[in-house]
């Protein structure tokens, strides 16, 4: 990582970020500490009619590879217990786990602005927290399962299947350097890809990060035990 923070290397990008924040959020401010850019302050969650549902003291750590990387989000007032059930990673920073990595293209696609990030995944996360509290510690929205199972759930929903073998084959095709149209389709139909799910595969190959998919693939094939767990869930 460069010793010079991105806001110095790219002052134009920094001033766009600053303006976007100032134009959209009275309660969020920029801070620079130890070569890192932070957005800190109060985030108000409103309903569709503009009525307030709740507010949270938050911190968004803008990554060194901004706007490429996903910012890290934290709740800083300590009003939310930093527990797994609330989807806070048990790391030293108690960061919020906003979405499955592979789902990034849906909720925070590359070239999105910081406002898209706050209005999308960040507000969804804190809306989820309000729902969790209102329902006595059980969200009606539902969350993704933790760890590998949550990632498999993402693929289950995308591919509309519960078959782990189909998912494994699909991810293998996702991370393959090249795709041959005559390959058998991952869905198990026995047809060639070109006569089956080629279009869907090409679309998701473009959208899902190969790095994230590769990680999931490795985790999946790591042990048969993992696969058994997935079958049981």
């Amino acid at each position, binding site marked *: 990582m460069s010793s010079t923070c991105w806001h110095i290397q790219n002052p134009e990008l920094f001033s766009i970020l600053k303006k976007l924040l100032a134009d959209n959020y009275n309660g969020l401010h920029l801070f620079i500490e130890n070569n890192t850019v932070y957005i800190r302050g109060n985030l108000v969650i409103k309903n569709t009619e503009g009525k307030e549902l709740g507010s949270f003291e938050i911190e968004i750590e803008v990554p060194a590879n901004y706007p490429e990387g996903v910012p890290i989000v934290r709740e800083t007032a300590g009003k939310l217990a930093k527990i*797994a059930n609330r989807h806070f990673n048990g790391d030293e920073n108690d960061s919020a786990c906003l979405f499955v990595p592979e789902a990034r293209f849906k909720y925070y696609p590359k070239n999105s602005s910081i406002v898209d990030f706050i209005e999308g995944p960040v507000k969804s996360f804190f809306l989820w927290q309000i729902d969790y509290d209102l329902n006595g510690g059980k969200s*009606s929205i539902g969350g993704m399962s933790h760890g590998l199972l949550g990632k498999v759930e993402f693929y289950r929903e995308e591919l509309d299947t519960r078959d782990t073998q189909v998912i494994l084959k699909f991810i293998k095709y996702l991370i393959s350097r090249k795709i041959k149209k005559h390959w058998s389709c991952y869905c198990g139909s026995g047809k060639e890809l070109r006569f089956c799910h080629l279009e869907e595969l090409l679309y998701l190959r473009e959208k899902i990060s190969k790095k994230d998919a590769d990680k999931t693939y490795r985790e999946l094939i790591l042990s048969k035990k993992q696969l058994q767990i997935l079958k049981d869930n």
Partner: protein
Amino acid sequence: MTNLEYLKDIIEKISIRDDGEEIKALRSEASKIEKILKGAFKGGDLTIKPGGSLAKGTMIKESYDLDLICYFGREDESAGKTLKEIYDSVKKALETDYFVNPKKSALRIESKQRVYFHVDVVPGRFVDGDSDDVFLYQEAGDKDYLKTNLSKHIDHVKSRGKNMTDIIKLLKFWRERNGLQSAKTFILELLTIEILKGKDLSRIDNCLDYFLREVSESIQNYKIEDPANPTGNDLSELFNDSVKNLMSSSAKNSLYIIGQQGWQGVFGEIESTTDDEKLASIQKIQSQNPGPRPWLRK
């Protein structure tokens, strides 16, 4: 509804009643802490009581912590001879039951059961037997101790009357809504009192308007000092240019919003959304525009 009536309703909305659940919970936690500390320093000459916004009558629902002072008598060595030893002994005594996060002079304690509350225990030692002056240990700063006086702090706020405590509550609410957490409560209180010196406090709306104008235009001209230790407690670190600039730009922005939408643009609606309304809203948002469901890296 006049501006004054609206602001009084907001004060009512944000205030914590003395018999409210929040206060009961804090007092119950305070009793538990007192028992732990008195058990740990048996026979010690301890004074344990609430300080901060609970003692000053400026606590608000949006953000409330309890400052619990734990002062040892001048001759009492049950927790140690030095201020550092006292600080460390109190920390150790609390660690069995709580997560303890050391702050500059206070010990922030958090529930091990992950229940939300913030209590800051402030260990210290009385300077002598005649006054309320105390020495606190300081983990950071140019010197490792600080002379202060809780009674003077409380009196500095309370002696200005209820209108002043109401104004401070509103400004604390303003701070929270504008994400100005870097402006510490102590600083905000001192600045409010300084700016509104000699003003007619009965017109809360005028006072707030004046405060915001002064902060937006002339905050650099204001000097604040610790009433308990004007020369020995340097507040310039807490009231630095970054805090001043942030407060100034937020005040400017608030004045603009007031001009466009009235006070409601700054403090929101008087009536809170009910839980049922919130749940219905969440379902509506989910059906119209479902966002990502949270995950966990594990």
